[in-house]
């Protein structure tokens, strides 16, 4: 199975995704562990990691013994930070760990051996304990992957893999794009499959998703992490970018020769499961036994080799036929030019991608383009205005702030995300033969001079 683990310390949740492999050590947040004992337990279970790295299930409603604090001070006016207040040395703590003391017990030892702890205010004591818990307690919660969890994980740990798409921006994309069950959505992304997976989650296995891909094959590692039931994969199609023009001009030729040259260039992140669904069956199928027994060992070897070669050729032909069928199916979905939505999030320049792929979208449907940078989207906006065929164009970015909410200690969190990327969204309309001009300047932007009081009011009222 594919699962995610989180190390939770009150409000802070950090995640990593892992495939559970038996008897294999895994490292997470500087903690080694074996995931074996999590298999069979319910999602959401919390485990303690013992000194050997084994997971021990913690019972729910297991309230820990409260830490013994023995009173507190009122403020820090007499507390001197000389680095000498903790009497336990690093070696002392190591030996405590080796003795098998639990995190809770180590923390109690630290408190008892701190000369300044009881002078700290209650708030400072709480903060101190929270910090030590993060360091010495090893609790791991195993969560079922969702778009929320994966988006937060990718943004927190591997933002480069997802073009620095922040999860609230992804949220906007899915909602503004009106991604819902039963629609036909075109997706082009280089976000490790996270955007694709999120779209599929919102489709719930209904409708269809056509993933356009550059290069040899679609990247789907992020999507695989969702752990969708197999029937979801029936709604997923892929189509190579390099055949878009052929499809639009009606000259697409789904022949074996074309597919052959394509399969030689594969993208490096592509997993074996991402390409063709029958590939999974191939690995486990056994070779048919040869019934003939030859007396000459050299002859037998030659026969075996040619048998293998023949089987490989048959397998390849089956694969190519499967691939041809899939390409034809994807082409059939696209050539109607009636997709219900378009989602773009990539490291490619958004302008040509958008203008090219919009051709596949029906009128009166939303589209949304993500870009890490603003200028390319300004270009998109300008080109779309010129060419027509889209209304309600909006270039936005999302501002996100977390709060610490504690009695008498409520304030925004000190560190904040600097930015989560930019979005261009709009709605398609029937394309005009000629660009609009003249008095009915519906597609034009308001000139700076014309901003009136009621326009200001309407922009501050609606954030949609």
């Amino acid at each position, binding site marked *: 199975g594919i699962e995610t683990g989180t190390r939770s310390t009150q409000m802070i949740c950090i995640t990593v995704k892992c495939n559970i492999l038996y008897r294999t050590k895994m490292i997470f947040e500087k903690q080694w562990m074996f995931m074996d004992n999590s298999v069979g337990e319910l999602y959401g279970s919390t485990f303690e990691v013992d000194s050997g790295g084994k997971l021990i299930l913690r019972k729910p409603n297991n309230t820990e013994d409260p830490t013994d604090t023995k009173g507190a001070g009122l403020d820090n006016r007499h507390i001197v930070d000389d680095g000498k207040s903790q009497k336990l040395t690093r070696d002392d703590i190591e030996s405590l760990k080796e003795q098998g003391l639990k995190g809770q017990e180590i923390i109690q030892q630290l408190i008892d051996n701190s000369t300044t702890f009881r002078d700290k205010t209650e708030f400072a004591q709480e903060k101190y304990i929270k910090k030590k818990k993060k360091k010495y307690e090893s609790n791991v919660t195993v969560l079922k992957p969702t*778009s929320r969890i994966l988006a937060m994980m990718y943004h927190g740990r591997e933002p480069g893999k997802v073009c620095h798409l922040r999860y609230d921006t992804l949220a906007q994309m899915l909602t503004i794009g009106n991604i*819902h069950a*039963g629609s036909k959505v075109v997706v082009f992304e280089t976000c490790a499959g996270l955007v694709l997976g999120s779209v599929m989650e919102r489709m719930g296995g209904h409708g269809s998703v056509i993933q356009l891909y550059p290069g040899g094959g679609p990247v789907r590692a992020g999507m695989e992490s969702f752990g969708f039931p197999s029937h979801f994969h029936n709604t997923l199609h892929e189509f190579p970018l390099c055949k878009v023009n052929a499809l639009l001009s009606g000259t697409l030729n789904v022949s074996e020769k074309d597919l052959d040259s394509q399969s030689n260039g594969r993208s490096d992140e592509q997993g074996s499961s991402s390409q063709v669904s029958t590939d999974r069956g191939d690995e486990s199928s056994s070779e048919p036994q040869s019934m003939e027994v030859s007396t000459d060992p050299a002859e037998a070897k030659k026969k075996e080799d040619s048998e293998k070669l023949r089987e490989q050729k048959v397998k390849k032909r089956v694969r190519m036929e499967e691939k041809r069928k899939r390409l034809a199916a994807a082409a059939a979905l696209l050539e109607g030019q009636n997709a219900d939505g378009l989602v773009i999030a990539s490291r490619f320049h958004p302008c040509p991608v958008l203008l090219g792929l919009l051709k596949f979208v029906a009128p*009166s449907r939303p589209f949304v383009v993500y870009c890490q940078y603003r200028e390319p989207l*300004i270009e998109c906006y300008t080109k779309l205005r010129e060419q027509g065929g889209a209304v309600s164009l909006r270039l936005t970015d999302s501002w996100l702030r977390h*709060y610490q909410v504690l009695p008498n200690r409520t304030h925004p969190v000190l560190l904040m995300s600097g930015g989560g990327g*930019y979005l261009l969204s709009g709605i398609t*309309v029937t394309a005009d033969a000629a660009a609009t001009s003249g008095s009915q300047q519906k597609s034009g932007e308001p000139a700076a001079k014309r*901003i009136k009081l009621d326009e200001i009011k309407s922009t501050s009222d609606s954030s*949609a």
Partner: protein
Amino acid sequence: MSFVEYSEFIQEGDVVIIFLGHDSMMPIKVEAGAQTQTRYGAIRHSSDLIGRRFGSKVTCSKGGWVYVLHPTPELWTVNLPHRTQILYTTDIANITLMLDLKPGSIVCESGTGSGSLSHAILRTIAPSGHLHTVEFHAQRAEKAAQEFKEHKVAHLVTVRNQDVCKEGFGVVGVADAVFLDIPSPWEAVTHAKKAFKRKGGRLCSFSPCIEQVQRTCEALLEQGFEEICTVEVLQRVHDVRSVTLHLPDFGPEDGGAESAKMASEEVLLAANSSHPSVTCRTATAPREMAGHTGYLTFATKPRG
């Protein structure tokens, strides 16, 4: 047409969105024989709308034209008649993601208000999910039920006119997600807890005031909720436009000849002035923006 399923052609009884121009739209209920007045003239439903494709250009009686759009929850949010202050798409989008909403989700919501969030939830949980929405104001509850029917989503929602703080959502043990947008959410936390499935789920409380947030977080912690997290999210709009900036005249350089060497391709001589200028294509901030809607507090109700 429905708010949870696209269709290609306009039919009688549909709710459609008329796009008049930049940030100007209006909803219309399509009726045979009816007419709707716009600043560009009248739209005759029978000839201009019924049978036309969504996304078409419609010419009005005065000669001007508009576009007719298929309704979506997002378009509805900016066009719906306000009975209360509503939630806008920015918050709605984050709520949807953070509550793990998807087809099949069972959601409990209170208060229904003007139905802005409700429509978005219905779109996301269709075709197999259900929304239990509670509104303590009788007329608002009635109006919401009526609208859900008109928008062809009534089969996905149950509206209850009651007080969630006293009577809960009307269902127990069924919800994957609970949403609260009420004056005193801390009073509804125990009911919210009961509404969840045994395996737990996600909760969100929306409050404009920080005091409400503090009391709600306290109640959530007391009631055993985990991963309590409060955020606020805002949308910044970038107005794309061309701006012209004048270039300074430092006078003639040594040698007397004016240097006309400009590397940039964008230099153009301003029509009525002898001073050169540069035009940039950029995006500026609007004069004002929405600075606060409310705080979103999320939490997980664990198993058990």
